[in-house]
């Protein structure tokens, strides 16, 4: 079991989370050339080692997170909100 320190809920088992995918992908503008969209949707660096990836805390705060994790050892180096502005806005509303 991987333990993920959620910035909102604290450290939880990975079974509370859903894996998204490669967190380094920046999606292009809607009117960007087809090749840019092809690369963003279909091409992956598939790093063996430290990579940034997205996880959603589906059975917790439901926030999307950016997790820096080693894909060989599964060690987690950092976790931060994927949308810090949204997190802040939610906290203010609450």
């Amino acid at each position, binding site marked *: 079991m991987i333990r993920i320190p959620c910035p909102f809920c604290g450290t939880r088992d*990975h079974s509370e989370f859903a*894996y998204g995918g490669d967190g380094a992908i920046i999606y292009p503008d809607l009117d960007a050339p087809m090749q840019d969209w*092809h690369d963003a*949707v279909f091409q*992956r*660096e598939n790093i063996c080692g430290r990579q940034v990836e997205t996880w959603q805390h589906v059975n917790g705060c439901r926030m999307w997170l950016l997790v820096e994790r080693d894909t060989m050892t599964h060690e987690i180096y950092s976790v931060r909100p994927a949308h810090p502005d949204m997190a802040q806005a939610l906290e203010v509303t609450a």
Partner: protein
Amino acid sequence: MTRFSAWNVFWNGVTGQKGWSRQWRDPEPKPRYDVVIIGGGLHGLATAYYLAKNHGIRNIAVLEKGWIGGGNAGRNTTIVRSNYTQPGNREFYENSLNLWEELSHELNYNVMFSQRSHITLLHSPGAVDATARNYNTMRLTGNADVEIWSLEQLQEAVPHLNYGADARFPIMGAAVHKRAGTARHDAVIWGYARAADQLGVDIIQNCEVTAILRDGDKVTAIETSRGKITTDKVGLAVAGNSSRLWNMAGMRHLPIESHKLQAFVSEPLKPLLDQVVVFGMGGAHFYISQSDKGGMVFGGDLDWYKSYAQKGNLPIVQDVAEAAMSVMPCLGRVRLLRHWSGVVDMSMDGSHFICKTPVDNLYLNAGWNYGGFKATPASGTYFADLIANDRPDKVIANHDLKRFERGLQLDERGAGPDPKLHG
């Protein structure tokens, strides 16, 4: 090399088993080969075998980082089937199944291929209709041995599934693929290694590739832990680690993510299950068969996050055990003997790649998802043909890296471009 035959088994039986020699040589790598295949798994060895046999290329090396049979060749659940619907995939897997049917004779090695049929359980009218549509497609396109069974037919053939009215997912019927079955995976890889070696292929174990040297658009040599090897052509057959070798060859992206898939085997039991049974419903996924030794061999979903570690996580063990109990409650007291995990190439559409690459003399065999074992003979045949003739056969014309640019996805499940969903 002693040929296996009834006479030789008998003769060695009465002469103290002294007439057998080792199954393949352990040669030192030569400084130059016509073709180097990186990866001594099922696909790499099959490719070397068919290159030698079908195309007369004998100066071949297969480089293996570990030992023959230590990777995914020995980590799969040994299921062979051809019930695919997408153009290209269905011809490919049907050809593969045809090759499986003759494989023991072809290799002079008993791969224990057992066509015990593959039964997919259906749990809703929608699933019956969708599967009937798929199976009709298969029947119309040449794979005539698939059929839909009623609940009564299924109960007669497989009496000890959970048919109770209180089952979480009551069974309504089944989709059956009769020529499908299982083979002994160790025998398959040993058989290919032995047969390739007999044709002069050098199988070099404990030989890790450390660099792929290029001069412009050509690979010139391979640096390995056992020295430098120059070669005319290089084939990559390292599913699970394709991206790492791709990087070594100086390229960055592939439409692949590496995930790990677990498999399980129980203590040996007396004959219990005479088919391959598959259950997939409501997010659960489970497939089971019984080996000739009696062990129940089964598996389920991926571990759900990208990984290169050959070790499985415990939540999936729990999921698979729950699925096992819901399908075959009689397994409840059976003890687990071993479980393990292998790293698989999960591709963006769930289909594989056998293709040329941007590097002229580098060829790629990758992206096998859950399906690498059953593909072995066809994968070797078509990859050897591609390497020898430098052009893809029409069956694999769309199994290239450019298909997504053409708007084509060979997506059997319709799951979309998310590698982990193509299980």
